[in-house]
């Protein structure tokens, strides 16, 4: 059998660069632990990276630390430690990973996570954020800033909602001035938001590539890797440059006919957080059926940039407020389900796969109704699966595989794209 040629560098440059950026970030965090820079903890949804970083803080996103622990099979000891502290089986896996990790000294396979000097809670779409940050504040006795972000119940935020968030951002800036002794540099924020905007536009271009047939991107499993810079490094030149590199790679894939799924048979939209402890296994369950995700909701948890919630340097605080309000899980169910249906339409998908998370009520409560709505009101084949994003004890591979096999088998006759068996 002929040896498969190594992929050209143009086809691996994005993943390679993403690894470099991730490694560099965690190495910097480990150095920060020695006290060179103050550390702010922040949540991904509707985060305020540009403002807080402009005051010299290094940023830690415990949700991202948690998913990295899970994907490296290192979440269970942290979860068990949190359970030993009293956090029950039904508490969010991200919370338990973090609070267990804190108790264990912040040691991860990718470096030491420093404790916080400041806690910025962007309460955007998940009530557990409030409880989680309260627990951290109680543990470390450091300032906690609660950014209350109104839940989005209409397609466009109201001016009163934006005014409310903007006023709080100004108060956060005043707090940062007090804690750091630095003055707020508005021009610097404007420059940073310009870099954010370039990264966001590049990210949106990448996501839109899923509209092509065959899809040159994997909008769920692959996008999860590529969402790291848009959430963690947004506002830095490296983030903007990264997405330029990603889109070069996507163009090279098309040029060379190299697609994430070599023979695309099913195009799916995926809703929900991945089962990180069994990430590769779950991905393989799609690949063996020639199923590629062409759009997904999870990569939008940091912000719905593809729906126009982009940072605007000409309206710095207002656009940050709009972005925070417009994070995916901060949207009411009627908006969420219409968005998913629009992805099915715009990305010419055959089906929707919903992955429910046992310990995440924000994402999951109501997904049964979503399935029902997609099936019966939109006529879209929909599969519902359930496990957990952090806790490996809840991933039942045989059961999930059986359900997926049955679903794709039944989908086959109805889909013009389908054919053959795995």
């Amino acid at each position, binding site marked *: 059998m002929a040896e498969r040629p190594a992929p050209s560098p143009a086809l691996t440059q994005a993943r390679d660069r993403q690894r470099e950026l991730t490694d560099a970030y965690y190495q910097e965090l480990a150095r920060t632990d020695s006290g060179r820079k103050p550390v702010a903890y922040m949540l991904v949804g509707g985060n305020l990276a540009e403002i807080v970083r402009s005051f010299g803080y290094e940023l830690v996103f415990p949700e991202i630390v948690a998913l990295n622990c899970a994907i490296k099979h290192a979440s269970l000891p942290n979860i068990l430690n949190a359970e030993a502290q009293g956090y029950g089986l039904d508490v969010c896996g991200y919370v338990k990973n973090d609070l267990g990790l804190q108790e264990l000294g912040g040691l991860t396979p990718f470096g030491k996570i420093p404790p916080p000097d400041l806690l910025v809670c962007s*309460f955007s779409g*998940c009530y557990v954020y*409030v*409880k989680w940050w309260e627990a951290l504040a*109680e543990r470390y006795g450091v300032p906690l800033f609660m950014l*209350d972000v109104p839940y989005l119940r209409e397609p466009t935020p109201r001016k*009163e909602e934006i005014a409310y968030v903007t006023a709080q951002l100004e108060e956060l800036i005043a707090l940062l001035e007090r804690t750091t002794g630095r003055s707020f540099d508005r021009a610097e924020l404007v420059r940073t938001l310009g870099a954010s905007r370039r990264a966001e536009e590049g990210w949106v271009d990448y996501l839109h590539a899923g509209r092509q047939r065959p899809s040159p991107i994997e909008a769920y499993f692959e996008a999860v890797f590529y969402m790291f810079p848009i959430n963690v490094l947004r506002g830095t030149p490296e983030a903007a440059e990264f997405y330029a590199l990603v889109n070069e790679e996507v163009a090279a894939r098309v040029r060379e006919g190299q697609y994430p799924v070599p023979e695309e048979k099913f195009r799916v939209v995926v809703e929900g957080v991945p089962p990180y402890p069994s990430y590769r296994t779950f991905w393989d369950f799609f690949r063996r059926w020639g199923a590629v995700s062409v759009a997904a909701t999870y990569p939008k948890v940091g912000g719905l940039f593809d729906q126009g919630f982009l940072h605007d340097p000409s309206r710095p605080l207002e656009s940050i407020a709009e972005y925070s309000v417009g994070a995916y899980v901060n949207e009411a169910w009627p908006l969420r389900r219409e968005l998913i249906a629009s992805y099915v339409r715009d990305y010419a998908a055959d089906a929707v796969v919903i992955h429910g998370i046992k310990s995440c009520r924000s994402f999951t409560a109501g997904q049964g109704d979503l399935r029902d*709505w997609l*099936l019966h009101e939109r006529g879209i084949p929909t599969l519902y699966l359930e496990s957990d994003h952090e806790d490996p004890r809840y991933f039942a591979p045989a059961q999930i595989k059986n359900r997926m096999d049955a679903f794709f088998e039944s989908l086959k006759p109805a889909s013009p794209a389908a054919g053959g068996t795995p």
Partner: protein
Amino acid sequence: MGGLLSLGNLPEPAATPSVELSEDLGEFARAATIEEMVRLGREVLSDPTYPTARALARAGRGVVGCFPVYTPQEIAHAMGLVPVALHGGGENLEINHADAALGSFLCSISKSTLELGLTGGLEAFRAVVFPYICDVSRNLEGIFPRLVPGRETFMLHLPQNFHTPAALPFLVHEYSRLAERFRAAGGSPLTEEALASSIELFDLQRAGIRRLLSAKQGERPSLSLSESYVLRRLGGLVPRELHVAMLERAASELEHRARPARDAIKVLLVGPFCEQPTLELLDLLEQVGCEVVDDDLLQAHRWYPSVPPGGSALERLARAYVDSRMDIGVRATPTTKGEAILSRLDATGAKGVVFLTAKFCEPALEDVVLYRQALDRRKVPYLHLEFEERSTAYEQARLQLETFVESIMFD
């Protein structure tokens, strides 16, 4: 519509009404003693189909449901509507359909509320308000209009940042949005005079409930926990004018009411701020030797002692909410969880804490850890029990509670 509603040939009632009340709810006006009020209240609570709401609807009153924990019910009242506290279906409602729409690992109250809606049990309600107390309540509102059509729904975003002056105008705007929904549900236009008058009435109710609570805190409490609870619970089920009159009768009786002396341990009851435990479980707490001197039950009536003066009526209501120092699982704590639980202990003289949390209630489960850490530091004993609406077997709970009480009593 296909889907969920076609699965079980709905609507088949999940529960059959067992209590029918007169349209003027005269039964409550005629209940002269605490014993009679509590007996009537227990009957009403045994029927998951909201008998008071059904009677009010038959009389042509516009009933609006208020999911826990807090809704400014004064606004509904001022618009000529009757706010009714919607606390799920209780122990006598079977869940057959709601799991499919909501999910498995969720609290009973969310499922039973949806089950009632899916099976025609909320026909009396013209509107339902879901405050953003947790992600489940929030998402429940999102799916409600499709599954339970024919009534207004509103997800009320109550602020979580109590340090910003901007919370007040934001909340006034939220309350205005709520009033718009009540108007769509048939409410009268909201006027300044009507709202001021409703605030006065609700302040009277709050004062009456404070009197009930103080009756639990003396050396010789003159009310049992379940009596106190049922009297308070009726405050969310009958028109407030009626309840204020009941509270006045109860207050008169309490002046000379005595219960037999008990050898009991004073405890705080923490956790059941949303989903409600069964009356049997509340009775059990005192049967085993706990004297519950303060609790988290039905906090909507005690969010603030009274609405402060100054500004428009809507602003006053909003300020009352924002300025409240209440520590509860569903809003950011004004201090720390540790300080909050210890100051409650100091204020009440409780010797221990019973945590009674609804299964799958994440806000309560996360708070309990921080409370426990503070109690451990001060060496205060506590016991944590979980419950569900349809709990029926209490033998294990009885054993745990008895052991807990004995461990304090013979320490």
